[in-house]
């Protein structure tokens, strides 16, 4: 279907006026750089396996209520009658049975399997949303700073530096617990949805900077290219330049930044829950599960094992996919 460049050049050179074309004939479709990248990705086995694993996790997470119905156990149901006097699960390996595939939590006796499904839902939602928001903000800031230069660049770069200098953890520890008090009275419950939004907000406030820097650098190198000047010479306005000319060339770094941001937010949210400022009881959450399970390493290792392994697989799959994506989108081949 496609001519080799040399052949095509020779033919074009020698037959300046090619065959007369019928106006309604469908043109031959070339392979865009995006399609080439997708083909390369398909060939990478690690990427495909990671992709399948991730899709599986996402489907499980989205279908959490359905799974709870089929499984027969909800995430907040307690089975304390299946615990011994010390609050430890009866039976083998932390209480694994046909009814409770991953066993029970000590003390409260909740089912670990269904709590993990729900925990995955929470974590994935927060991670994706935070990654989306930070990428959007970062891209907007980076494009404006990179393209407009001058005072706009100076101001945005200064804001970026300040945001990078602020200590995220200290800020989070100071702000997150008190934000609920501002919006909800002393007798009102802080709903989980609000906690989720606060976490996304905290991540967004600090996470956009690396994407902004990345995009700004790319834009600076792109804006001097002659196709941009050609657009300006044709009378293009700022909007066209940014969105029609520059943005299509930025997809590769943006996509890679996004795909690596998601796992970092999964672990980030788990870490905040570990410190007690993430998602609170009784909503299921990976980080809190791991935090509560570590003292039981000697006495109920299954309790530590399941959430630990799951978050490990999840983050590993994302990282492998992100790396493969970066390789597939290698700019050298987009020539």
């Amino acid at each position, binding site marked *: 279907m496609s001519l080799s460049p040399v052949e095509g050049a020779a033919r074009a050179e020698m037959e300046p006026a090619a065959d007369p074309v019928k106006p309604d004939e469908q043109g031959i479709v070339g392979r865009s750089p995006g399609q080439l990248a997708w083909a390369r990705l398909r060939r990478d*086995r*690690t990427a495909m*396996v990671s992709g399948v694993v991730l899709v599986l996790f996402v489907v499980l997470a989205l279908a959490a209520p359905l799974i709870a119905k089929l499984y027969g156990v909800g995430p*907040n149901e*307690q089975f*304390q009658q299946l*615990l*011994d*006097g*010390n*609050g*430890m*699960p*009866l*039976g*083998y*390996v*932390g*209480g694994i049975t046909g009814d409770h595939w991953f066993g029970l939590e*000590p*003390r*409260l*006796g909740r089912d670990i399997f269904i709590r993990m499904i729900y925990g995955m839902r929470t974590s994935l939602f927060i991670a994706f949303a935070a990654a989306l928001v930070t990428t959007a903000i970062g891209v907007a800031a980076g494009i404006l700073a990179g393209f407009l230069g001058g005072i706009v660049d100076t101001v945005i770069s200064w804001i970026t530096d300040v945001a990078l200098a602020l200590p995220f953890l200290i800020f989070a520890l100071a702000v997150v*617990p008190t934000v609920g008090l501002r919006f909800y*009275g*002393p*007798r*009102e*419950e802080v709903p989980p949805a609000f906690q989720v939004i606060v976490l996304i907000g905290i991540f967004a406030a600090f996470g956009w900077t690396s994407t902004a820097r990345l995009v700004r650098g790319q834009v600076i190198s792109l804006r001097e290219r002659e196709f941009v000047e050609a657009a300006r010479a044709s009378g293009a306005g700022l909007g066209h330049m940014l969105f029609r000319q520059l943005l299509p060339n930025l997809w590769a770094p943006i996509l890679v930044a996004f795909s690596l941001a998601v796992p970092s937010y999964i672990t980030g949210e788990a870490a905040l829950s570990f410190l*007690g400022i993430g998602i*609170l*009881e*009784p909503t299921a959450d990976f980080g809190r599960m791991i935090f*509560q399970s570590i*003292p*039981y390493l*000697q*006495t*109920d*290792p*299954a309790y*530590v*094992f399941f959430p630990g*392994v799951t978050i490990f697989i999840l983050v*590993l799959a994302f990282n492998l996919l992100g790396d493969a994506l970066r390789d597939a989108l290698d700019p050298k081949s987009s020539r």
Partner: protein
Amino acid sequence: MRLKRAAATGGALALLVVMGACSENKGTDGDSGENRVQSGSIATDPKDSMGPAAEVAGAAKGGTFRVIRETKISHLDPQRVYSFAGLMNAPLYSRFLTTFKDDGSGKVTLVGDLAETPGTDVNKDCKVWEFKIKDGVKFEDGSAITSKEIAYGIARSFDPDLTGGPTYLQEWLANDPQYDTKWNFKANKTALPPGLTTPDAKTLKFEFAKPHCDLPFAASLPYTAPLKADKDTGVNLDNRPFSSGPYKITKNTAGVELVMERNENWDPKTDPVRHAYPDKIVWNYGPDAEAGANRVISDNGDDQAALAWNGVPSALVARVTGDASLKDRSVRGQTPSLWRLTINTQRVTDLSVRQALNYAIDRDGFVKAYGGEASAKAVTTLMPPSTIGWESYDAYPAGPSGNVEKAKELLAGKTPELVLGISDDSPELATQLKTNLEKAGFKITVKTIPTDAKLDEVGKKNNPYDLWTDQWAADWPSGAAILPVLFDGRSIKAENNSNTSYVNSDEINKEFDRILAMPAGDQGKEWAKLDKRIMTELAPAVPLFVEQGYYLHGSKVGGIYLSSIFGYPALTNAYVKQ
């Protein structure tokens, strides 16, 4: 191929982990350690107050005894000691007016420590008390301890800079909860607070405006430890107390260790309870509960002579109870620390709702959520079993898992909306309560309160919560240190309340006054009756459980017992096997 390798290592890890948990858990036998019945008496015969203390079987002199604790003891200054660790440590380097003879069996006898007897009620009205101080009692520098030094110690407890300690004596002498407004220590260093006099070097006299028959008990707390005026370094005494006991502080590195060595000037013949078996006693700070317990379990080197002060955390209980070799090294027993679900009666005004809560509560589940039977034992009374004269009763019999149906009946279709305040370090307890109570039709909203602020928040009269958990341990095993403190409405102030149910019943208040005026020995039964009456008529709280102590020490340690008064390990009989 990296995928295959990753899968293989993952599988191997999984197998390892799972194998470790492969034995079947068949459950526990419900044994939570010794169950002792508390009984107490006051020994008026001076012979009972004389030393030396009875020898501990198998004890040997020598060695270094270690105590492992996560954080440092907050106060060493005897006038400022009130934490459990402080209270168990203070007898090693200080002596008090009176003290308890205790062997961990629950039978305690109040005797004179620096005093020859536990005090004389001069006019038989509990308002005037006299103590005669023993001869031959000395400080670490050899100087004599007289009534003057003990009086000085009590006087300096009025100093608002020396905060932290109990306030019974100060409030009783000044006859005012705001005692430091009545007498200014700093301005009157050479004088004594009102009502406290030293007619001579051997006599100490208390005169109160109101009768306080519990004075002998109140005098057993460390704020009666003596101090010479020229050795008073004010707030710095907290780092280097001046010893009147068998040991003296030789080194104190904040956050690292506290070292105590023998005080040669302590005379065992004058001391009815203390021994000085180890040459040195060291507190090692740093390791948390898990780390401390694991160190003592492995029993290596110096840890063989160590006690893990933070106890066996509930996550490790299964490991320790399952190991027969650790049984000799475990110290278990009940404590006087009682947890209750306090009901804010200013907001929850309907008695039937409060009673419904008492029917609905699943104590079994709550104990499991708290850490299991090794850590807690369900209780249905307002006073713990370790109180002298305690009687068991259940005002709202509902079975160990509660009776949700009965509760619903009582509510008669209502669904009260209640706000439960919980400290942010134990959110699982809130989940447990919420799930439990909502089965009975309550609608529970959970609010988390920062841990260090919780006590202050619920102590405010106008706090916004309906329910929260409270914990109380009496300072001496009498109902007098529990029921009037927690349920007398006349003590309610704007902040810093102990009566957090905010009940105020004139009839019950009159009962408090009546029983407090009785001789200490007769009060026990009356308090037990009043306990039941308060629960039945007011239902100001839902009693939950009594904390159980579970401690582990190394193989070379002996003589550790759980104090019948405070429920924590007592160190006065500790020795190191040679």
